[in-house]
């Protein structure tokens, strides 16, 4: 079993099949490899290492290069090679790398995928760096540090954070002669405003609001706001009446004409409608700010908190830098990991403006990067934010959501029927573990 061929098999569909995947024939690392606490001491300044660093967002590379340049002032012999893979392929690639034990030393991770990798011993815990005092989890929003811990072991802290708000194009409101709602608005107000704009501007093909397929920016928020759950105690929360209300919010919006139809939204996504000036209100994450730079509507933007349902809520999420469990340069990788999540690097990241840094006290720079748009909304939202719902294998039930919910949104089936079906299928997947 020691020859190369049997360890790293090549799985291919059929003769000449265009899809070839390198994958491991037998698992390399034991699954308990990550659980034991790693010792960590801060390395001497002359430590030499070549680190690889994988991420998915090209727009953040410049800020990260600055981070790395200032890191190298202290550790000139730690070289860092950044490789960017678009998000759509990122986790396919990472999974292949993890299977063949060739993960990069340092890589970005998100909440939905974290437990899968941590649970299989692919990620190095940061117990060592925490004990050495170079990473302090207390400096980050609690909802996000818990996102990157599993079975009381901390594997990372967020490098950035995002919350959801309603991006508003004031020009559309003026054109439709509809008043801008106040910050303490309700679901009702959102629906009537959306409908009023769509009605007033229908001949221009402009809509007031827009539904969306994405849980994080749309229906997870309304589910939480109506007091429902997406997943709780390893079971689906979709069967509850509250969760149904959260889904109905979107089917009602589409049915009333306050939003483009579901088919229209698949062809042209809500953010595209918004950026091209054809949408008054867009439910979007704080990360959407960078997509607005240089557009025609940049100057007429403001942000409102999500309208209130039974309670106020927003989904919070953040990306973390994690170290591979089988990294050959673990000490150097942890040192860079700690640096990237520290005050200095986070300040730099915030000044670049594309994301909200997660470190306490470095966030204001983000709000100031677009002074007229009231980006402070996204920071204030942390107070009532709910973590992005995840489980050991989030992708398995995310697929069910995308498969089943459209029938509810488009009005093809009653919401109650769809959510009941989703809940039972999701429970079946969760039971499989």
């Amino acid at each position, binding site marked *: 079993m020691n020859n190369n061929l049997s360890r790293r098999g090549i799985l291919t569909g059929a003769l000449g099949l265009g899809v070839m995947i390198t994958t491991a024939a037998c698992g390399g690392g034991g699954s308990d490899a990550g659980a034991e606490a790693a010792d960590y001491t801060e390395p001497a300044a002359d430590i030499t290492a070549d680190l690889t660093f994988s991420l998915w967002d090209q727009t953040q590379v410049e800020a990260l290069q600055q981070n790395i340049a200032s890191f190298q002032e202290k550790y000139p012999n730690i070289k860092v090679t950044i490789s960017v893979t678009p998000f759509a392929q990122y986790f396919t690639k990472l999974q292949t790398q993890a299977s063949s034990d060739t993960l990069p030393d340092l890589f970005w991770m998100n909440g939905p995928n974290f437990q899968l990798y941590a649970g299989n011993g692919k990620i190095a815990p940061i117990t060592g760096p925490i004990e050495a005092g170079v990473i302090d989890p207390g400096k980050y929003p609690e909802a996000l540090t818990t996102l990157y811990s599993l079975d009381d072991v901390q594997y990372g802290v967020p490098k950035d954070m995002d919350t959801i708000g309603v991006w508003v194009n004031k020009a559309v409101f003026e054109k439709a002669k509809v008043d801008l709602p106040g910050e303490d608005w309700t679901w009702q107000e959102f629906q009537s405003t959306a409908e009023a704009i769509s009605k007033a501007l229908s001949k221009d093909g402009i809509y007031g609001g827009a539904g969306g397929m994405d849980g994080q920016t749309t229906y997870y928020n309304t589910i939480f706001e109506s007091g429902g759950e997406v997943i709780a105690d390893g079971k689906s929360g979709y069967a509850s009446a509250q969760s149904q209300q959260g889904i109905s919010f979107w089917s009602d919006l589409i049915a009333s004409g306050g939003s483009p139809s579901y088919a229209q939204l698949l*062809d042209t996504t809500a953010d595209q409608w918004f950026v091209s000036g054809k949408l008054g209100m867009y439910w979007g994450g704080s990360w959407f700010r960078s997509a607005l730079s240089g557009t025609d509507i940049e100057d007429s933007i403001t942000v409102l908190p999500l309208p209130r349902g039974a309670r106020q809520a927003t989904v919070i999420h953040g990306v973390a830098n994690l170290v591979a469990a089988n990294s050959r340069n673990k000490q150097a990788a942890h040192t860079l990991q700690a640096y990237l999540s520290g005050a200095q690097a986070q300040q730099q990241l915030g000044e670049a403006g594309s994301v909200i840094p997660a470190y306490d006290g470095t966030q204001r720079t983000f709000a100031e990067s677009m002074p007229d748009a009231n980006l402070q909304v996204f920071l204030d939202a942390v107070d009532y934010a709910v973590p992005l719902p995840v489980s050991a294998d989030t992708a398995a039930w995310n697929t069910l959501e995308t498969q089943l919910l459209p029938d509810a949104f488009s009005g093809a089936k009653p919401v109650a029927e769809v959510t009941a079906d989703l809940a039972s299928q999701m429970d079946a997947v969760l039971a499989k573990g």
Partner: protein
Amino acid sequence: MTSPPGSAPVVPKESGTTKTRRPLRRDGIWPWLFVAPLVGGVAVFYLWPIIQTAWFSLTEFGVFGGTTFTGLSNYQELFADPDLYKSIGNTLLYTVIVLLNIPIALVVASLLNTPGLRFAAVYRVLYFLPYVAMPTAVAMVWRLIFNGDFGLLNYVLGWFGIDGPYWISTPGAAVVAVSIVGLWSSVGFSVIVLGAALKQIPPELYEAAELDGASRWRRFRAITVPLVTPSIAFLSVVTVIAGFQLFDLLFAVLGNSYSNPTIYDSMSLVYMFYEAGFVTNEKGLAAAVAMVVLVLVALATLVQFRLQKKWVHVD
């Protein structure tokens, strides 16, 4: 695979005598050394993966490796899944529509072969361009063309009073839309292959037919078509195999499942493989899908080879 147009069969026919069938060992090791690189490549990159895939399809494959033998349970799950039959149906529909590229290409190639045609090279390049363009780039452009609200296609249909559907977000329409893109991008290759075959036809045949008073249509039917049947056979085999492997266009035109649920109504076999292998992490099931693709491609190719004896014209 059929022999390329014009080339004679290499294997001598009816050579039953002992003289021509010499024992291999008399040739020594040399012939084996010469073919070793190829055989090695085939063994490592084709045979071994097939054996492994067959094995994986009988196991439950951990997300990051580690297999447990589960017998035929993956196949049981697969054959009970309505998605399998839906994706076989979609794959067949796609393949049939893309096969239309051969008659279209035959007409185009004949026109390009007209003596004295000006700018023939330019036309040939234009027809071939879609074939060399990246499938994802092609898909991006067609995505814009198909857009229900702002797309070119529905805009043009509007001139004729036709209210076009939301092509890539309407179940049913989406597979057809993707098939049209596949058809469009495969015509170029067929034009080149058929064009080469047409060049092989001796002009005297046409001259003789013309003297006999055969019409242009008659000459096309009685001379051109029969003489290019070997190339048509080759193209149909290649097209069917490529059709069964439909993935990239589908993925790029319809987007992945997170952005467009229409993909579930339009998925192909290879998309099902991708979804099982990399989205829902059921790699054993994915291997079973791959085995189904292998068997179907083998069957389709075998049937075509059988049928070819009836209609392919060989001198």
